[in-house]
């Protein structure tokens, strides 16, 4: 009974395409799904290619294990919720985004029904805190889990993910934010091959290929890039021309930016041991021109795609 209820909720609703603008700066926050995307770059590549007529930059701030409460970001302040959230919000605002992609809910869902209201409050709080950016917000629902050796039966958990997705839908509706409903698309949309059975087993098949049942493999990212475009309402060709040069440039940019915003040895460079190595912190800022240069390379390739 529950299953059908969740499925009913999960029907993708007609929504106008998300409108990207020339000069958009997207900041992408979320958990492992977002963090790993920067290493593979398929989603970002597809996004840029589908909008090749506009200059768009993406800054990926995904962090494994993260939640709407920014639990993964506190470092030495891990036990101070305000400090955790501040880390995430300040960093996002510093990047002056015009668009913020927010992809949470997977990790929160382990708290089950009891955690739903905490999740909703956390999401509201995060959105309130991000208001000063005055950016267009896109809320993503999580991807469902799939059957794997590590997760022989994802059914129960997918019900939970369905409930958390519903919270995200509600918040998106209330706040008039754009909803990028990955969960609905994967469980009952075009990419769910067999609807009923698929919800039991999660999003199997190549589109959302996963080794452990919860994270996409590189192939999973590559194959589901189309899904990302669909949930954002981007028009795109079925097959892109060779985007490897663009993807490589994006990965290069992401790596440099990663060294900029999440450098190693933070304790010594910026943390409580900065009196020892703080003099080397200036090096970290030296990544900025390198990121800009990598961005120029992306720009160059984009212009070749435009035609």
């Amino acid at each position, binding site marked *: 009974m529950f299953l059908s209820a969740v499925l009913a909720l999960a029907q993708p609703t007609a929504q106008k395409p998300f409108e990207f603008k020339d000069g958009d700066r997207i900041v992408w926050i979320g*958990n*492992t799904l977002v*963090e*790993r995307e920067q*290493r593979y770059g398929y989603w970002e590549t597809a996004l840029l290619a589908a909008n090749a007529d506009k200059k768009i930059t993406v800054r990926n701030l995904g*962090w*494994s*294990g*993260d939640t709407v409460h920014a*639990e*993964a970001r*506190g*470092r*030495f302040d*891990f*036990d101070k919720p305000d400090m955790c959230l501040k880390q995430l919000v300040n960093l996002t605002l510093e990047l002056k985004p015009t668009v913020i992609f927010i992809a949470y809910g*997977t*990790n929160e869902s*382990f708290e089950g029904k009891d955690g739903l209201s905490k999740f909703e409050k956390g999401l509201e709080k995060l959105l309130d805190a991000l208001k000063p950016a005055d950016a267009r917000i896109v809320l993503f629902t999580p991807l469902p*889990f799939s059957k*794997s*050796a*590590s*997760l022989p039966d*994802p059914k129960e958990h997918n019900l939970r993910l369905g409930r958390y997705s519903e919270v995200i839908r509600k918040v998106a509706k209330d706040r008039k934010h754009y909803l990028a409903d990955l969960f609905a698309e994967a469980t009952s949309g075009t990419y769910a091959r067999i609807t009923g059975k698929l919800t039991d087993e999660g999003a199997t098949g190549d589109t959302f290929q996963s*080794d*452990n*049942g*919860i*994270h996409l*493999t590189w192939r999973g990212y590559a194959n589901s890039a189309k899904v990302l475009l669909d949930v954002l309402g981007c028009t795109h060709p079925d097959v892109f021309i060779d985007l490897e040069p663009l993807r490589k440039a994006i990965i290069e940019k992401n*790596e440099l930016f990663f*060294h900029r915003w*999440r*450098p*190693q*040895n*933070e*304790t*010594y460079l910026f*943390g*409580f*041991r900065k*009196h*020892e*190595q703080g*003099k*080397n912190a200036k*090096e*970290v800022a*030296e*990544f900025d021109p*390198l990121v800009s240069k990598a961005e120029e390379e992306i720009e160059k390739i984009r212009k070749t795609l435009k035609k």
Partner: protein
Amino acid sequence: MRQFIPILLLVLLPSAAFGQAKAIVPDPDPELERKTFVVAPGFEVNLYAADPLLAKPIQMNFDPQGRLWIASSEIYPQIKPGEKANDKIIILEDTDNDGKADKTTVFADGLLIPTGVEPGDGGAYVANSTELVHLSASKPGQKADRKKILLSGFGTEDTHHIIHTFRWGPDCRLYFNQSIYIHSHIETPHGVKRLNAGGIWRFNPDRTELDVFCRGFINTWGHAFDKYGQSFITDGANGEGINHGVPGAYYPTAQGPHVSRILHGMNPGTPKFCGLEVVSGRHFPDDWQGDLITNDFRGHRVCRFKLQDDGSTFAGREMTEVIKSNHPAFRPIDVKMGPDGALYIADWYNPIIQHGEVDFRDPRRDKTHGRIWRVTAKGRDLVKKPKLVDATIPELLDHLKAPEQWTRQQAKRVLKERGAEKVLPELVKWVEAKKWMDGAHDERHALELFWLALALGAPDTLPKAGLNAFHQLTAGCLGAKDANVRAIAIRYVGEGFILKGDRAKAPIAMIGSYCREGTSRERLEAVRVLAQAAHPEAATAALAALDKPMDRVLDYALWLTMRELEPYWMPEFKAGKLTFGGDAKKLAFALNAVGNKDTVKPLVALIDSGKVPKENLHGLYLLLTQIGGPEELHKVLERAAAKGVSPAERDALVLAVEQTVRLRKVSRPKDLDIITSLWSEGAAAHASVRLIGLWKVEELRFALEAGATAKAATPAVRATSLESLALFGDAKAKEFIMNLCADPKPEVQRPAIIAYASLDLGGAANFAARYLEHAKPEPEVADLVAAVVGRKGGPAAFAKALKGSRFDSPDVARIALRAVRASGQPADDLAAALTAAGDLAAARKPPTPDEVKAMVADVAKADAARGELIYRRKELQCLACHAIGGAGGQVGPDMTSIGASAQPDYLVESLLIPNKAVKEGYHAMRVVTNDDRVTLGIKVREANGLLVLRTPEDKEVTIPVKDILERGEAKSIMPEGMTDTLTKQEFADLVRFLTELGKIGPYAPNKARLVRRWEVIEPSNANLNAFRRTRVSAAAEADNAFAWSPAYSLVSGDLPLASLPKFSVWANTAEQTVLRFNLDVTTAGAAKLKINSVAGLSLYVGANPVEPKAETILDLKAGVQTLTLIIDRSKRTEDVRVELDDVPNSPARVSVIGGK
């Protein structure tokens, strides 16, 4: 050859290379390095591989083919902007079996500081910064071109803390560690795993199962399993030697809900270690089997420890080094047994080891070298390299009988990778054919098969027909004659039964039976594995351990298990459904472990029942203090005032009441008459006086006013009375104290101002300033200054009050300045005001680089022996904060091997500018509480709403987190200017002494178990009166009334007699000295003391006299034993040196207690 260019430049352009003072960049010729090795007798060392075959090895592991995989990093410690991360995993191979690598393959590159590598599953598991990845090559023998991210979200806050120490456990799970500063958040299909501190992870890649095996540690760079699967752990920053890894246990610096109690290592006071391996196999002599090898990378030594059973845990003793060297770049950091039975050592080869204290870009950092050394036993045959990869399954199963742990483990890995489908049917056949019960073989063969079966997913993956064989195997392990096999089988069977969701009572009862019936180690494993059963019965089962004698680790294990099981047993207990069989001892243990307010009622009932053994009663009262309300505290005070309670117990109880009132703000009991009956002497009396103020007991205020002003009052009584009065905090108290602040008698005035500081800071600052103008330069001046400075805004208020002041004595200004520095508060204005008031020369300035250089040059000509005496001077306070060989204060880092790791320029700067570079784990915190008091200290732990700091006085202070207004980083806890009173020569001598610590020579770490930390009786009037009332030998009695002061041996182990206080009790009697030290006896039995000379000595063990001999055999009971020496100074001039040693075949496990 590209790699050689930088070093060539250094040679050609020494001025560039030696830009930093006293750089030591040695000649990199490996043979020159090898020649510096002093090798254990009967062994030799050859070079297996060196640069350019490899550079900067961080970790190494062999694969089943006998190839050596190495994770290496040239980028460490920090990537430079514009630099491409290109660190490598390389494979070294000795194809012609001549003991030297002749082939190198770069398996992977493009990595960022890979700190761990473990080959397996067709490639290698690699630590790649925030990720754990699996790399493999699509074409065998080629470079890796496939990367699978297995786990992500590991912290990188410090690149020598990121995930490291990869190894396959005997269960074929991947164990790896993270260090103290790392915060990791890992998503798995079974939930997000978070670890916000150091710890050991355990990972099953087949099912993406990740859990924390042990919590804590600072730099856990060593983890090895013995042949029974017991874990041993070393730490590169925590000087406690070898640690026994108990599943789920908390170790120093752990985070989590149960940090209030932790486990410690076996060898406190040893240097820090990196890497760990267990000696196993026929190439090594019999008396080396099972010994542990680790590396003192600071001291350029490869060390060996021998383990002995010690109840549920182990005792470890250091043996002669495998290698020691004085080569400044020899940095042994990993150690592994190899396929040929030899021992392999990775040498990171670097004159600079740290990256916190020394600049990331220091040119002395070596980026290009690295060596693998190979240690072999002379005249003993090597082991023939087993052929595993192409072997048949029965051949591989047979290899699980090999005497070499290397072969067994690698054969198991090959079998694991062949998969359940192929291997399990053969394993079943093997078991059914009883090949595992063949009497010629060790029972450990059954254990290896059992591990293999579990690793292959048994019993779930077994065909039905194979279940019986698996059960036979399980029963064989659980029923083995060898208790160590049984013990580890309990761990794995327990996990198997209980974790599979079978929560029935039967398996719990089965495991529970081991808690009572087994050997100590079986009981330990059973108690710990029961914590995983989410069932109230598991608590009852675990408590059965108390039916037999406990030891410390077992007690800890049970405590942890009871806490972890609390959510299951507490509700049942409160509902009256669970009674622990009405056993008062068990109930007391359970309540004590949990110690929350839920347990108040049952605890009172238990105490009132009269069933509790007398020796447990005191502990229960202490527990009641921690959790009880006003009436329970009254009950505790009644107990404290009762007859038959010893003075030490009385002090402990009343201090505990005071502490709990401060921390939990428990209000006063109605009736407080009991307090006056505590006003006798000792700490209890003072605490009870303070309670009057804390509780604002109006009806006793008069007593405090009397205590503050009475002529007969001692300074201590006066101070405590005033402190307590100030706690009333009302106008009446304020007026009363203010009047005393202007009292003509300084002994009244001073404590009054101190107390007044908490009521009116500005007023107190004014009084203090006026007082200092005419004060004598007495030590008490420092207390007064500290009272004002140690408050929020205190330094500013004081500076203001001092404007225009002029002190009669410049020394008063000096004492005050010292107190200001010791406060760790930012107080430049105050320092200037005091300097002006004392008409002192301008304040000290930090030395310029040139000055540091000149001082370093002086060090070369200085004398370490003179330096040691300077180090020991009381006024320098070195010993009060730093230990050597574990003896000394615990506030600052242990100095045992500081000279072998720190460069002289670093030492000079650390003495003059203590805040410039602070050792890991010694960063001070400045906390302002809601009473405006400022506390400075090093964080010990923070949990359950309480912050515990270690203050510069080496005291632990507990502060409720909700009382904290501000918290922030403080400067180094070591005050500036400690060495200002030294002459240039003295300073050079002191640094010289420090530079020698840990190096080969007279100041090397000593393996002997020497008594280094003593206590001595000073000839104070109180002590002499106590002697006169009783007799000198009363000093040996427990609970004696003497005040003892610390004394420490020289690094050599000798305690200089001439420096010890002596006294004559009566006129014309011989002068005497009384000394004592403590031994920790974990298993009772005979032990030996080696005493350098017995002239003039009387020896007492406890209160019992024992005849001292050069080799004195003692029969020691378990527990902490105090040994007292009374020295007739007329009969002795030699220094005192006492060494603890084993008596052959004695079961005793004894260690010398160090510390402050």
